[in-house]
């Protein structure tokens, strides 16, 4: 029985190779296929589409100037909706369509689900926005790189800001129970406790979409916290900060990258004044960043969206590595990424042993007169 089945499996595998590998091998001679995976529809589409635009812009530029070592770049754009089960389908689709490198994985959860499939196929993955720390730090995914700093770096920065710069000693940590928000909040809590200079007086999760957050705000007030560190996205953040103002609570508000968004200021309006949030370093003085934004305006007629510069840099790093390595072999690509610096909108970057970009960081911003202003 088992012998028979083995034969069958072998036959299936052979059939598989016939249908997939051969045409793939035939095509590699003239194009380099780059898969772009991310949410392109649904409620998180606004986080995924800027990456697609960045990939299109760079691919066009490279192809106009003769390709990578003479090979044209071809994009395979696939939607993951940020759902793990769909992301694995997408990953298999990209692998069977013959993708050689992957730009993407926008959400950490979906990226985590898809990575084993890419690893198995030996594909390089560079994400512009998946910030979950274990993706690089666990060492399980040697094919994974990213052009954004992980959550723990961000939490560390916010905690340092709260304790060292502002001198707070009582901190309430609130999160939205989500993957990103809770992860960030747990790191913040850990760092506050490790610092020994401040204490976490409250650690709570709020339910996104709830009609009213006054009970949590009363609890923050009761705890006597001087500041609230919030992990999550802007809709909940604006509700909480509005409720804090309504309940006459004057603790400050420090949050993460998911909140450092102009929508937060628009929705919370005057209540947002004075709120802090960490976000990627301001790159508007970098000529390459200005150029990247201008290219987006020229091609799409609009201002770029979230993670655009990270995606632009990831795509640059990826194509550059392919040019330097002379192939899309994972080991060669890794070596190129780790040794040859790339000039990107985020600055000149290389990657460390684990896959995090060196030279990419966060800074703290504050809402001043309805605008996010970087604090030096």
């Amino acid at each position, binding site marked *: 029985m088992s012998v028979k089945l083995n034969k069958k499996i072998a036959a299936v595998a052979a059939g598989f190779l016939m249908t*997939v590998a051969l045409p793939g091998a035939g095509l590699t001679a003239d194009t380099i296929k780059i898969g772009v995976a991310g949410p392109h529809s649904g409620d998180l589409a606004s986080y995924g589409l800027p990456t697609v635009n960045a990939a299109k812009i760079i691919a066009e530029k490279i192809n106009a100037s003769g390709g990578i070592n003479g090979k044209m770049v071809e994009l395979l754009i696939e939607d993951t909706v940020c759902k793990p089960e769909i992301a694995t389908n997408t990953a298999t689709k990209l692998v069977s369509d013959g993708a050689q490198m992957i730009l993407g994985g926008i959400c950490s959860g979906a990226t985590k689900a898809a990575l084993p499939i890419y690893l198995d196929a030996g594909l390089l993955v560079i994400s512009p926005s998946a910030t979950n720390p274990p993706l690089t730090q666990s060492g399980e995914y040697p094919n994974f790189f990213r052009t954004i700093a992980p959550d723990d770096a961000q939490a560390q920065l916010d905690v340092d800001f709260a304790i060292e710069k502002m001198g707070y000693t009582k901190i309430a940590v609130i999160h939205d129970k989500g993957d990103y928000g809770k992860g960030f909040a747990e790191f913040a809590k850990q760092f506050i406790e490790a610092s020994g200079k401040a204490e976490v007086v409250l650690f709570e999760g709020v339910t996104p979409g709830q009609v009213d957050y006054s009970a949590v705000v009363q609890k923050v007030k009761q705890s006597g916290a001087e500041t609230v560190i919030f992990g999550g996205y802007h809709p909940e953040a604006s509700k909480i900060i509005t409720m804090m103002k309504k309940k006459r609570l004057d603790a400050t508000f420090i949050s993460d990258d998911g909140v450092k968004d102009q929508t937060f200021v628009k929705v919370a309006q005057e209540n947002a004044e004075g709120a802090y949030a960490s976000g990627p370093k301001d790159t508007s003085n970098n000529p390459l960043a200005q150029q990247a934004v201008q290219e987006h305006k020229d091609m799409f007629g609009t201002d770029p969206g979230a993670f655009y510069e990270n995606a632009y840099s990831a795509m640059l790093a990826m194509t550059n590595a392919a040019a330097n390595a002379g192939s899309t072999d994972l080991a060669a690509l890794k070596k190129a990424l780790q040794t040859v610096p790339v000039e990107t909108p985020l600055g000149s970057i290389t990657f460390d042993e684990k896959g995090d970009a060196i030279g990419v960081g966060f800074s703290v911003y504050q809402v001043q007169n309805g605008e996010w202003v970087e604090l030096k």
Partner: protein
Amino acid sequence: MFTLQELKRSALISLWFVFLTFPIMVVKVNSIEKTVQWRWMNVVYILVGSFVLSLLFRYFLYRKERQSGEDEQQGDNTGRSLIHRLLIVPKYRNMIYGVLLGAAVVFPFLTSSYQVNIMTTALMYVVLGLGLNIVVGLAGLLDLGYVAFYAVGAYSYALLNYHFGLGFWAVLPIGGLLAALFGILLGFPVLRLRGDYLAIVTLGFGEIIRLVLENWGDFSQGPSGISNISRPGFFGIELSLEMAIVYIYYLMVLFVIVTIFLVNRLQDSRLGRAWIALREDEIACQAMGIDKIKTKLAAFSLGALWAGIIGVVFAAKTTFINPASFTFLEAAIILSIVVLGGMGSIICLIICALVLILLPEYLRALSEFRMLAFGAILVCMMVFRPQGIIASIRRTYTYKPRNRDEA
């Protein structure tokens, strides 16, 4: 049918819809920049669309009423659809089954592993639909928290694999039984509840399970989920990714066949007929001496058993799970499958599951309209064809005196 009066009525209805949808469809405001965008083209679409749809709506309603009148006059034989007439003849039936099975077997050889992968997903929904069909279709208990059992199965595999390294085959029965246990756990308190209360309590139960998984980080690793779950083992041989995909696909084909067989037998069993009796009239059913408690609990636990088993397969297939995969939306999709399948019919349920799951996958460009269509389909099905696309045939016992003479 399309008299002047009808047309006039539709025209009025379409005007009403223009008014109704005016603020949402036509106006779009930006309260920050203080701009208003008027999308007048939408008025035209609504006008034409609702005119046509209202004509169709009333035409189908009219047809449905006429049909139900006719059905009562003639026997139900003429009402049977082509598929049923084909299925009644054993020769054709076996042929259809043979072709389907053959297609299922050769499918991985003809297509890429992506196709195989999404087909596996669709097959999983077939089994989930068949499982929920026991509870909703046969026993008539509207269970909106079915996805909780699916989660129980998935997490039991993920956790047992993570902590103790247990393999797929070992956990498969454990996951199924755990889910069945949860089914009984849920079943007990809700035994006394009537239909609507039951629906909301099951919904609450589903939410509780998901919330616990989300918040009890020490137990379930919270919202960041569990990754690196091992794929099903194959007699100790390490399979490559493509082979694993094909392997899971064949497993699912096997599961579907086994499930169809079991559900079919179950339906015709004493228990199955007790469920149908319970669905039709609870009090009469009790008066006939059917143990209500036992029957209901059996429905809950058996339905949950399948969800648990598929949960295990789901965890093994995606190798990563987090609570976001087990929302109410998922429950609604499974419910749509059962409803479209006509709550009781197996063949139709399979077709509906394949269509509902595969169509959005192939029409990714239209995926935004997917949930809109799901909603509309649920309403239209209930209004026009509560018996499903292809109605299941109630077993009838006809008394034929002439046969006795011959025998």
